[in-house]
């Protein structure tokens, strides 16, 4: 890792192929879209970055929606209701 860093700072400023391949490999495991779409290693860096940004945005949006949904679901939950008991037992 330290080799890569010193190599990067001393050579011309660009993302090395190593980094792109590394990132793509790791992201492929996590991002469903990229993995299914292409099999070649030559996925462009900008494409990968774009997919990553989209994915993060979608995840954040989903957290927001789920918060909204949970807020609505919990709205009428009182302490002794079965829902409360189930949630408690699930989370504890």
């Amino acid at each position, binding site marked *: *890792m330290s080799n*890569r*860093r010193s190599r*990067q*700072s001393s050579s*011309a*400023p*660009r*993302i090395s192929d190593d*980094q792109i391949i*590394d*990132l793509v490999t*790791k*992201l492929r495991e*996590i991002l469903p879209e990229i993995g299914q779409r292409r099999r070649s290693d030559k996925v462009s*860096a*900008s494409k990968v*970055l*774009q997919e*990553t*940004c989209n*994915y*993060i*945005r979608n*995840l*954040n949006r*989903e*957290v*927001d929606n*789920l*918060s*909204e*949904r*949970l*807020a*609505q*679901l*919990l*709205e009428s939950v009182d302490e002794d*209701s*079965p*829902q409360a008991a*189930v*949630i408690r037992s*699930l*989370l*504890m």
Partner: protein
Amino acid sequence: MNTYNMVKQEFIKKWITTLHMLDSSVEHPLNVTERKNAIRLSSDIAMAATRSGATIWSRALISRTRKYTTTCKPVAHRILKKARNRMKNRCTTITRNGIFGAKMRVRKRTELLKSLVPGGELIYDKDYLIRETLDYIVYLQAQVDVMRTVAAIDSVTRDLS
């Protein structure tokens, strides 16, 4: 039990704590929006706390949420304090990424990514940014998975009762 399940387990524990902390500090009754914000806030803090101070994104997220609540301050303080020493030795070397023609797209999207990952704007090293991004995504997924499960259980029991 694999690592991802352990992350989710840890997140659940932390989330219960933050939910209780927030619950005892707000004025009841809450309207839906207030409740939603409280749930979102507690979830984010819990996610960051699960990672604790080992990453930039988790600490940035904690300090970002600090302004919305005073009750979670002790948790935030503990995490930030623990991480301060760890971060002192981290290398954030500035690498100049010149705008050479086709690299413009990559640079633009890197900037976008930096704005999406908490604390990303503080990271200059590309290796570092990529590592933080991958880490952040894993914990985001755990957060989504857990919240999805809780929401599903709640609606199912509601239908049955």
